[in-house]
């Protein structure tokens, strides 16, 4: 009587271990896939960042900024003669 019980328990435990091993492996694969998906998202975000950086660089094109400042806003380049020095007063900022 004891022998069949022992054999049954022995086999059952091994089956459980096998299932646990399979489960562990599937979890590993699932996490690996998740990590790879995140890597892809990261790459996409980096490309997006680069694209935005390029757009920002083209927006701050100095020639264009100057053109807008002069033609649309009516600004003029600063000359030394435009700067007045205040003497004998405290700085009130």
């Amino acid at each position, binding site marked *: 009587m004891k022998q069949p019980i022992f054999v049954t328990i022995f086999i059952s435990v091994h089956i459980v271990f096998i299932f646990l091993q399979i489960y562990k492996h599937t979890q590993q694969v699932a996490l690996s896939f998740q990590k790879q998906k995140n890597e892809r998202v990261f790459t996409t975000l980096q490309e997006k960042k680069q694209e935005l950086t390029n757009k920002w*660089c083209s927006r701050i094109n*100095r020639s264009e900024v100057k053109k807008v400042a002069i033609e649309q806003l009516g600004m003029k380049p*600063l000359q030394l003669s435009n700067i007045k020095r205040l003497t004998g007063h405290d700085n009130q900022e």
Partner: protein
Amino acid sequence: MITRNEKARAFILFLIFCLCYGIIIANLYHIQIMQGEFFSQLAKQQYYLSTTQTPPRAAIYDRSGKQFLAHNKQALSAFITPRSISDHKKLNAFLRKNFPAAYSQLPSKKDKHFMYIKRHLSQSEIDLITKAKLPDIYFLTEHRRFYPVASTGNLVGITDLDNNGLFGIELQYNEQLKGTPTTYFLEKDARSGHFYLSKQMISQGKEGVPLQLTIDADLQFLIDEELSNWLQKYNSKEGAVLVMDPKTGEILAMVCHPHFDPNNTQTINQELTKNKIITECYELGSVIKICSALAALAEGVVTPDELIDCKNTKSTYIDGRLINTVIEAGTIPFTEVIVKSNNIGIAQVAKRLGPKLYDHYMRMGFGKKTGIQFPGEQKGFVNHPDKWSKQSIISLSYGYEVSASLLQLACVFCMIANDGVPIIPQLIKNNQTTASSSKPIYPPDVIAIIKDMLLQTTEHGTTKRAGIKGYTVMSKTGTANMLIDGVYNKQRNIYTCAGIIKKGDYQRVVVTFVKEATGSELYASIVAAPLFEKVATKTIIHERIV
């Protein structure tokens, strides 16, 4: 009861089965053991592959650390798979018309799996291919460099199609910028889908390290504009401006005109890619007089107040050599010889120096490299006393038989601004590897005399137009005939103005240079000095030294 016959048949059947199993086992042995290595490799090829990831090329920043001077941009490249073209006729016609280089390569690559049509396509080329709607042409994304500040092209340089530096900073610091690739071993399924089962690093690479230059991108733009307008005014072929911080040797702006567009290298003029401030040398003329004056004062062969007879003429002979000067003068103090830039006076003083003048020029940095980390730097030339003619000392005294780069000239003025302490010019911010010397190479009292001479030159001498009210400006001009086919041409000149602008602790060294201005009776006091004033004004406003 089993008969003998049945036993025999059973035995034969048994033997047949044994034979069949024997064949199976033998085949298994053959496949698993004898050809095991072969099939194992075949299987590995299916589900193991090695891949190399190249890091993106690192960016180059200006001195603020926020403005890009070079960074990466995505570019599309077009390719075909020659072995599997569906419509040869249409493709050939399209390539023949629009991409003749690719069309000529196609016959030799018809067995290949991959062939580029063109890399880094322009927008018009992308539109052309898109509109053609050819199923055999594909796009792939690659990285290319983009340079927001076009005037830094001959300083920063450019890269080739594979993002390797070709010249300038991109070449000098290529290894640092590109990093090293990382190699992985991936385990994938046989369908070789997007995902892998395991990833093993074979060799670890490094990311590229960004560079921060000492260049101020905004100042560079302002000066580029100013120089461009100035050269147009005089219809000049070339010009250059250099702005440095004499205390640290940092180069704040380095502009050469004309320059090329580093973002459009389809048709590139190689001549325009040279950084003429570092890689070209010139006989600079009278601006070198300050160096001969420094040498003479340091050797004690003259004092600033000593009266020098300048013969009261614009032309005279000394040692058989005809010497011309622009402003005639009589017997004047040596200081006035420099202020009025009198060739006759300086030649007489230089004769007292003799071969020691050569040693002083070498001490000041002429005839050797400055130590800047930049490819193609020229060290210039100083005529050695062994090769002197009777008149060489005269030529050397006012800037001939000595050729120097504008950077070398700026370094001399930095040394003067630093009370005799020389500097090593810097292009990289916080460069700890190169430290300037802390010992003066000329005594401070001699330097003080030189500074006074330069100040007087600006106040009432040849560089009056370089003066800025409210600021101390110490400057010197030089007009030099160009050597064309072995003869000095009086109609073709180079005009230089170099000086120091100072207010309190703030100091900047500015060098302006114009080559071949159109007009008669032009001198550096008219062509280069006003440009110095404009550049210096832009610099002090930009840096808010008011």
